[in-house]
Protein backbone atom coordinates (compact mmCIF):
# COMPACT_ATOMS: atom_id res chain seq x y z
CA UNK A 1 0.00 0.00 0.00
CA UNK A 2 1.44 3.30 -0.93
CA UNK A 3 0.10 5.87 1.38
CA UNK A 4 -0.49 9.51 0.61
CA UNK A 5 0.14 10.19 4.29
CA UNK A 6 3.85 9.91 3.95
CA UNK A 7 6.51 10.19 1.35
CA UNK A 8 8.72 7.15 1.19
CA UNK A 9 12.27 7.60 2.32
CA UNK A 10 14.36 7.09 -0.76
CA UNK A 11 17.48 5.01 -1.12
CA UNK A 12 19.65 8.08 -0.96
CA UNK A 13 22.42 8.07 1.59
CA UNK A 14 21.25 9.76 4.75
CA UNK A 15 23.42 11.98 6.91
CA UNK A 16 23.51 9.15 9.41
CA UNK A 17 24.82 6.63 6.84
CA UNK A 18 27.67 8.95 6.03
CA UNK A 19 28.39 9.43 9.71
CA UNK A 20 28.37 5.73 10.40
CA UNK A 21 29.97 4.39 7.25
CA UNK A 22 33.63 5.26 7.50
CA UNK A 23 36.37 3.55 9.40
CA UNK A 24 35.36 3.00 12.98
CA UNK A 25 37.39 5.83 14.33
CA UNK A 26 40.55 7.41 13.08
CA UNK A 27 42.11 10.08 15.20
CA UNK A 28 45.26 12.05 14.61
CA UNK A 29 46.35 14.48 17.25
CA UNK A 30 48.25 17.39 15.75
CA UNK A 31 48.70 19.36 18.93
CA UNK A 32 46.93 19.39 22.25
CA UNK A 33 43.33 20.23 21.48
CA UNK A 34 43.79 20.11 17.71
CA UNK A 35 42.70 16.74 16.44
CA UNK A 36 41.92 15.32 13.03
CA UNK A 37 39.30 12.65 13.36
CA UNK A 38 36.79 10.53 11.50
CA UNK A 39 33.71 9.39 13.36
CA UNK A 40 32.11 6.01 13.19
CA UNK A 41 29.29 4.66 15.29
CA UNK A 42 29.74 2.26 18.19
CA UNK A 43 28.36 -0.53 16.04
CA UNK A 44 30.71 0.32 13.18
CA UNK A 45 33.58 0.22 15.65
CA UNK A 46 32.60 -3.26 16.74
CA UNK A 47 32.30 -4.36 13.11
CA UNK A 48 28.73 -5.54 13.65
CA UNK A 49 25.89 -5.44 11.20
CA UNK A 50 24.00 -2.35 12.10
CA UNK A 51 20.47 -2.90 13.38
CA UNK A 52 17.72 -0.50 12.42
CA UNK A 53 18.44 2.73 14.25
CA UNK A 54 16.51 5.92 13.90
CA UNK A 55 12.96 6.21 12.77
CA UNK A 56 11.15 3.57 10.74
CA UNK A 57 10.95 4.77 7.12
CA UNK A 58 7.41 5.28 5.84
CA UNK A 59 5.80 4.74 9.23
CA UNK A 60 2.88 6.75 10.59
CA UNK A 61 2.48 5.98 14.26
CA UNK A 62 -0.98 6.36 15.69
CA UNK A 63 -3.48 5.38 18.34
CA UNK A 64 -6.98 3.94 18.13
CA UNK A 65 -9.12 4.59 21.20
CA UNK A 66 -12.44 2.86 21.82
CA UNK A 67 -14.48 5.19 24.03
CA UNK A 68 -17.04 2.44 24.71
CA UNK A 69 -14.38 0.48 26.59
CA UNK A 70 -13.09 3.48 28.56
CA UNK A 71 -14.76 3.72 32.01
CA UNK A 72 -15.31 7.20 33.37
CA UNK A 73 -13.60 6.43 36.69
CA UNK A 74 -10.43 4.99 35.15
CA UNK A 75 -7.39 7.17 34.56
CA UNK A 76 -4.71 4.48 34.31
CA UNK A 77 -3.37 5.97 31.06
CA UNK A 78 -2.92 9.39 32.68
CA UNK A 79 -1.08 8.03 35.72
CA UNK A 80 1.10 5.80 33.53
CA UNK A 81 2.09 8.74 31.33
CA UNK A 82 2.85 10.86 34.36
CA UNK A 83 5.00 8.12 35.92
CA UNK A 84 6.81 7.20 32.71
CA UNK A 85 7.65 10.75 31.62
CA UNK A 86 8.02 12.49 34.97
CA UNK A 87 5.33 15.17 34.98
CA UNK A 88 2.80 15.79 37.69
CA UNK A 89 -0.62 17.39 37.61
CA UNK A 90 -2.02 18.50 40.95
CA UNK A 91 -5.07 20.17 39.49
CA UNK A 92 -3.65 23.67 39.10
CA UNK A 93 -4.42 25.37 35.80
CA UNK A 94 -0.71 25.85 35.24
CA UNK A 95 0.12 22.17 35.77
CA UNK A 96 1.18 20.07 32.79
CA UNK A 97 -1.30 17.70 31.16
CA UNK A 98 0.26 15.65 28.40
CA UNK A 99 -2.83 13.43 28.48
CA UNK A 100 -6.15 14.03 30.23
CA UNK A 101 -9.50 12.36 30.63
CA UNK A 102 -12.41 14.22 29.05
CA UNK A 103 -16.10 13.48 29.54
CA UNK A 104 -18.44 14.29 26.67
CA UNK A 105 -22.19 14.65 27.08
CA UNK A 106 -24.74 14.67 24.33
CA UNK A 107 -27.09 17.56 25.20
CA UNK A 108 -30.05 15.98 23.40
CA UNK A 109 -29.91 12.46 24.75
CA UNK A 110 -27.83 12.86 27.90
CA UNK A 111 -25.46 10.06 26.86
CA UNK A 112 -22.03 10.54 28.38
CA UNK A 113 -18.77 9.28 27.12
CA UNK A 114 -15.30 9.29 28.64
CA UNK A 115 -12.07 9.29 26.68
CA UNK A 116 -8.42 10.23 26.97
CA UNK A 117 -7.23 13.20 24.89
CA UNK A 118 -3.60 13.89 24.12
CA UNK A 119 -1.64 15.35 21.20
CA UNK A 120 -3.44 14.02 18.15
CA UNK A 121 -0.26 13.96 16.03
CA UNK A 122 -1.83 15.71 13.03
CA UNK A 123 -0.51 15.21 9.55
CA UNK A 124 -0.82 18.98 9.07
CA UNK A 125 -0.19 20.28 12.58
CA UNK A 126 -1.25 23.90 13.24
CA UNK A 127 1.35 24.06 16.04
CA UNK A 128 4.10 23.50 13.48
CA UNK A 129 2.65 26.15 11.16
CA UNK A 130 2.72 28.87 13.78
CA UNK A 131 6.04 28.11 15.51
CA UNK A 132 8.39 31.05 14.89
CA UNK A 133 11.59 29.07 15.56
CA UNK A 134 10.83 25.67 14.06
CA UNK A 135 10.91 24.09 17.51
CA UNK A 136 7.48 22.59 17.03
CA UNK A 137 8.05 19.99 14.36
CA UNK A 138 6.80 16.73 12.90
CA UNK A 139 9.16 13.79 12.65
CA UNK A 140 9.18 11.83 9.44
CA UNK A 141 7.20 9.04 11.11
CA UNK A 142 4.35 11.40 11.94
CA UNK A 143 5.13 12.17 15.59
CA UNK A 144 4.66 15.84 16.48
CA UNK A 145 7.21 17.04 19.02
CA UNK A 146 8.69 20.13 20.64
CA UNK A 147 12.43 20.54 20.22
CA UNK A 148 13.11 22.24 23.53
CA UNK A 149 16.55 23.25 22.37
CA UNK A 150 14.94 25.79 20.03
CA UNK A 151 11.68 26.48 21.89
CA UNK A 152 11.54 30.05 23.16
CA UNK A 153 8.34 29.56 25.15
CA UNK A 154 6.16 31.94 23.13
CA UNK A 155 3.18 29.55 23.41
CA UNK A 156 1.83 30.25 19.92
CA UNK A 157 1.50 26.48 19.48
CA UNK A 158 -0.68 26.24 22.57
CA UNK A 159 -3.00 28.83 21.03
CA UNK A 160 -3.01 27.09 17.65
CA UNK A 161 -3.72 23.58 18.90
CA UNK A 162 -7.44 22.74 18.55
CA UNK A 163 -7.12 19.98 21.16
CA UNK A 164 -5.52 21.89 24.04
CA UNK A 165 -2.82 19.24 23.94
CA UNK A 166 0.16 21.30 24.96
CA UNK A 167 1.14 22.89 28.23
CA UNK A 168 3.83 25.27 29.37
CA UNK A 169 6.42 24.73 32.11
CA UNK A 170 6.06 27.72 34.44
CA UNK A 171 8.33 26.72 37.31
CA UNK A 172 11.83 25.26 37.58
CA UNK A 173 11.77 21.46 37.37
CA UNK A 174 14.02 18.99 39.14
CA UNK A 175 14.23 15.22 39.13
CA UNK A 176 13.45 14.82 35.44
CA UNK A 177 13.64 11.44 33.73
CA UNK A 178 16.59 11.14 31.40
CA UNK A 179 14.26 9.85 28.66
CA UNK A 180 12.02 12.92 28.94
CA UNK A 181 13.93 16.15 29.57
CA UNK A 182 11.63 19.03 30.55
CA UNK A 183 12.30 22.44 32.03
CA UNK A 184 11.10 25.97 32.68
CA UNK A 185 10.22 28.23 29.78
CA UNK A 186 9.39 25.55 27.21
CA UNK A 187 6.19 24.05 25.87
CA UNK A 188 5.53 20.34 26.14
CA UNK A 189 3.04 17.71 25.16
CA UNK A 190 2.51 14.03 24.37
CA UNK A 191 5.56 12.58 22.62
CA UNK A 192 3.76 9.35 21.69
CA UNK A 193 6.47 7.77 23.87
CA UNK A 194 9.02 8.44 21.18
CA UNK A 195 11.77 7.03 23.41
CA UNK A 196 9.95 3.69 23.51
CA UNK A 197 9.32 3.73 19.76
CA UNK A 198 13.00 4.40 19.03
CA UNK A 199 13.89 1.60 21.44
CA UNK A 200 11.60 -0.75 19.51
CA UNK A 201 9.13 -1.40 22.34
CA UNK A 202 6.24 -1.08 19.89
CA UNK A 203 3.88 0.43 22.44
CA UNK A 204 3.33 3.49 24.61
CA UNK A 205 3.03 3.88 28.38
CA UNK A 206 -0.70 4.75 28.16
CA UNK A 207 -1.53 1.77 25.94
CA UNK A 208 0.46 -0.58 28.19
CA UNK A 209 -1.42 0.68 31.25
CA UNK A 210 -4.79 0.46 29.50
CA UNK A 211 -4.10 -3.12 28.46
CA UNK A 212 -2.97 -3.96 32.00
CA UNK A 213 -6.33 -2.81 33.42
CA UNK A 214 -8.08 -5.24 31.09
CA UNK A 215 -10.17 -2.51 29.44
CA UNK A 216 -8.20 -2.74 26.19
CA UNK A 217 -9.57 0.60 25.04
CA UNK A 218 -6.33 1.77 23.41
CA UNK A 219 -4.28 0.40 20.56
CA UNK A 220 -0.94 1.64 19.23
CA UNK A 221 0.61 0.90 15.86
CA UNK A 222 1.77 1.92 12.42
CA UNK A 223 -1.20 3.19 10.40
CA UNK A 224 0.83 2.88 7.21
CA UNK A 225 1.63 -0.80 7.70
CA UNK A 226 -1.36 -2.66 6.19
CA UNK A 227 -0.59 -5.77 8.27
CA UNK A 228 -0.55 -3.98 11.62
CA UNK A 229 -3.38 -4.55 14.09
CA UNK A 230 -4.30 -0.86 14.13
CA UNK A 231 -4.41 -0.53 10.31
CA UNK A 232 -6.66 -3.59 10.07
CA UNK A 233 -8.88 -2.22 12.85
CA UNK A 234 -9.34 1.21 11.25
CA UNK A 235 -9.98 -0.43 7.88
CA UNK A 236 -12.61 -2.76 9.37
CA UNK A 237 -14.50 -0.71 11.96
CA UNK A 238 -15.87 2.82 11.96
CA UNK A 239 -13.62 5.35 13.65
CA UNK A 240 -13.56 9.14 13.68
CA UNK A 241 -11.11 11.97 14.20
CA UNK A 242 -11.83 14.73 16.69
CA UNK A 243 -12.69 17.95 14.82
CA UNK A 244 -12.59 16.18 11.49
CA UNK A 245 -13.95 19.45 10.00
CA UNK A 246 -10.48 20.96 10.33
CA UNK A 247 -9.05 18.43 7.87
CA UNK A 248 -5.85 17.89 9.83
CA UNK A 249 -5.71 14.08 9.31
CA UNK A 250 -4.99 12.99 12.84
CA UNK A 251 -2.83 10.13 13.97
CA UNK A 252 -5.18 9.43 16.88
CA UNK A 253 -8.61 8.03 16.02
CA UNK A 254 -11.63 7.29 18.22
CA UNK A 255 -14.40 4.70 18.12
CA UNK A 256 -17.88 4.96 19.66
CA UNK A 257 -18.00 8.67 20.43
Amino acid sequence: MTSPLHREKGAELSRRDILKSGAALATVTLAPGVTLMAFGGKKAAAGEDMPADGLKPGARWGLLIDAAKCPEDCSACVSACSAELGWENNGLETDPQWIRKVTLRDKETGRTNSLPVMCQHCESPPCVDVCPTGASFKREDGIVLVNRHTCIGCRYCMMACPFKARSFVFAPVSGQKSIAPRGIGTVEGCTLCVHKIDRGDGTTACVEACTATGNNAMMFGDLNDPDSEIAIAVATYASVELRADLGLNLGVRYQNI
Partner: protein
Amino acid sequence: MKNLLTSLLAVLALAIAPAHAQELFPSIPKALGEPHPEGNEYWRINHPALLAHDRDLVVLEGIRDVDASLVGCVVCHAVNGPDQGPVPMPVNAGSPDNSCQVCHQFVAIEIGCFVCHASVPSKEDVAMILPQYSADDEGWRAYMEDLAALQEASQ
Protein backbone atom coordinates in the same frame (compact mmCIF):
# COMPACT_ATOMS: atom_id res chain seq x y z
CA MET B 1 59.99 45.99 24.34
CA LYS B 2 57.56 43.27 23.27
CA ASN B 3 60.23 40.62 23.71
CA LEU B 4 61.11 41.91 27.13
CA LEU B 5 57.46 41.80 28.18
CA THR B 6 57.04 38.24 26.87
CA SER B 7 60.07 36.96 28.72
CA LEU B 8 59.02 38.75 31.87
CA LEU B 9 55.59 37.10 31.67
CA ALA B 10 57.19 33.70 31.05
CA VAL B 11 59.42 34.07 34.08
CA LEU B 12 56.44 35.13 36.17
CA ALA B 13 54.39 32.16 34.97
CA LEU B 14 57.22 29.76 35.80
CA ALA B 15 57.57 31.24 39.24
CA ILE B 16 53.87 31.02 40.04
CA ALA B 17 52.85 27.77 38.39
CA PRO B 18 54.36 25.14 40.72
CA ALA B 19 53.36 26.92 43.90
CA HIS B 20 49.78 27.70 42.94
CA ALA B 21 48.89 24.94 40.48
CA GLN B 22 45.89 23.99 42.62
CA GLU B 23 44.42 27.48 42.49
CA LEU B 24 45.20 28.17 38.86
CA PHE B 25 43.43 25.19 37.35
CA PRO B 26 40.29 23.36 38.44
CA SER B 27 40.87 19.83 39.62
CA ILE B 28 38.65 17.75 37.38
CA PRO B 29 37.27 14.57 38.98
CA LYS B 30 38.24 11.26 37.37
CA ALA B 31 35.57 9.41 35.40
CA LEU B 32 34.46 5.79 35.09
CA GLY B 33 34.42 3.84 31.83
CA GLU B 34 36.70 3.81 28.81
CA PRO B 35 38.66 7.02 28.17
CA HIS B 36 37.63 9.09 25.15
CA PRO B 37 39.64 7.78 22.16
CA GLU B 38 40.02 11.36 20.89
CA GLY B 39 41.66 12.42 24.13
CA ASN B 40 40.56 14.68 26.95
CA GLU B 41 41.95 17.87 25.36
CA TYR B 42 39.77 17.34 22.30
CA TRP B 43 36.65 16.82 24.40
CA ARG B 44 37.35 19.75 26.70
CA ILE B 45 37.40 22.07 23.72
CA ASN B 46 34.79 20.48 21.47
CA HIS B 47 32.13 19.05 23.78
CA PRO B 48 29.55 21.76 23.09
CA ALA B 49 29.72 21.22 19.33
CA LEU B 50 29.74 17.43 19.61
CA LEU B 51 26.75 17.42 21.94
CA ALA B 52 24.84 19.94 19.82
CA HIS B 53 25.39 17.86 16.69
CA ASP B 54 24.29 14.58 18.21
CA ARG B 55 21.29 16.06 20.02
CA ASP B 56 19.89 17.02 16.62
CA LEU B 57 20.36 13.45 15.39
CA VAL B 58 18.43 12.19 18.40
CA VAL B 59 15.64 14.75 18.51
CA LEU B 60 15.01 15.29 14.82
CA GLU B 61 15.91 11.93 13.30
CA GLY B 62 15.37 9.52 16.18
CA ILE B 63 18.91 8.14 16.01
CA ARG B 64 19.68 7.11 19.56
CA ASP B 65 23.02 5.37 19.01
CA VAL B 66 25.18 8.49 19.09
CA ASP B 67 28.72 9.09 20.27
CA ALA B 68 28.10 12.22 22.32
CA SER B 69 25.12 11.72 24.60
CA LEU B 70 24.46 13.78 27.70
CA VAL B 71 23.34 10.65 29.55
CA GLY B 72 26.80 9.25 28.80
CA CYS B 73 28.45 12.34 30.33
CA VAL B 74 26.26 12.13 33.42
CA VAL B 75 26.89 8.40 34.00
CA CYS B 76 30.68 8.27 33.60
CA HIS B 77 31.48 11.70 35.05
CA ALA B 78 29.26 11.33 38.13
CA VAL B 79 30.73 12.49 41.42
CA ASN B 80 29.95 10.84 44.70
CA GLY B 81 28.70 13.47 47.13
CA PRO B 82 29.90 13.88 50.72
CA ASP B 83 26.53 13.71 52.47
CA GLN B 84 24.09 11.62 50.54
CA GLY B 85 21.62 10.15 53.02
CA PRO B 86 20.60 6.49 53.23
CA VAL B 87 20.90 5.71 49.50
CA PRO B 88 24.16 7.03 48.03
CA MET B 89 23.60 9.28 45.01
CA PRO B 90 25.94 11.30 42.80
CA VAL B 91 25.76 15.06 43.32
CA ASN B 92 23.47 16.96 40.94
CA ALA B 93 24.40 19.92 38.75
CA GLY B 94 23.48 22.31 41.55
CA SER B 95 26.59 21.26 43.49
CA PRO B 96 30.00 22.88 42.93
CA ASP B 97 31.51 19.34 43.15
CA ASN B 98 29.60 18.24 40.04
CA SER B 99 32.00 17.29 37.26
CA CYS B 100 30.55 19.83 34.80
CA GLN B 101 30.36 22.58 37.42
CA VAL B 102 34.01 22.20 38.46
CA CYS B 103 35.10 23.68 35.13
CA HIS B 104 32.02 25.75 34.35
CA GLN B 105 32.22 27.66 37.60
CA PHE B 106 35.94 28.19 37.05
CA VAL B 107 35.32 29.80 33.66
CA ALA B 108 32.04 31.43 34.80
CA ILE B 109 29.83 29.89 32.14
CA GLU B 110 26.32 28.85 33.08
CA ILE B 111 25.25 25.34 32.02
CA GLY B 112 21.91 25.37 30.23
CA CYS B 113 21.67 21.59 29.80
CA PHE B 114 20.41 20.74 33.26
CA VAL B 115 17.49 23.16 33.23
CA CYS B 116 15.75 20.33 31.35
CA HIS B 117 18.06 17.30 31.45
CA ALA B 118 18.59 15.03 34.43
CA SER B 119 22.01 15.64 35.98
CA VAL B 120 21.95 12.47 38.09
CA PRO B 121 21.80 9.12 36.28
CA SER B 122 19.13 6.49 36.89
CA LYS B 123 19.91 2.78 37.39
CA GLU B 124 18.78 2.14 33.83
CA ASP B 125 21.07 4.86 32.47
CA VAL B 126 24.06 3.35 34.28
CA ALA B 127 23.32 -0.15 32.98
CA MET B 128 22.86 1.16 29.43
CA ILE B 129 26.11 3.15 29.29
CA LEU B 130 28.27 0.86 31.47
CA PRO B 131 26.94 -2.70 30.95
CA GLN B 132 29.17 -4.08 33.73
CA TYR B 133 26.59 -2.70 36.19
CA SER B 134 23.14 -4.25 36.28
CA ALA B 135 20.02 -2.06 36.37
CA ASP B 136 19.08 -3.01 39.94
CA ASP B 137 20.06 -2.10 43.53
CA GLU B 138 23.06 -4.43 43.36
CA GLY B 139 24.39 -2.73 40.21
CA TRP B 140 23.76 0.70 41.68
CA ARG B 141 25.70 -0.12 44.84
CA ALA B 142 28.65 -1.43 42.82
CA TYR B 143 28.54 1.71 40.66
CA MET B 144 28.51 4.07 43.65
CA GLU B 145 31.33 2.12 45.36
CA ASP B 146 33.48 2.31 42.23
CA LEU B 147 32.80 6.04 41.95
CA ALA B 148 33.77 6.60 45.58
CA ALA B 149 36.95 4.51 45.19
CA LEU B 150 37.92 6.39 42.04
CA GLN B 151 37.51 9.79 43.68
CA GLU B 152 39.28 8.68 46.84
CA ALA B 153 42.26 7.51 44.77
CA SER B 154 42.48 10.76 42.81
CA GLN B 155 42.56 13.01 45.88
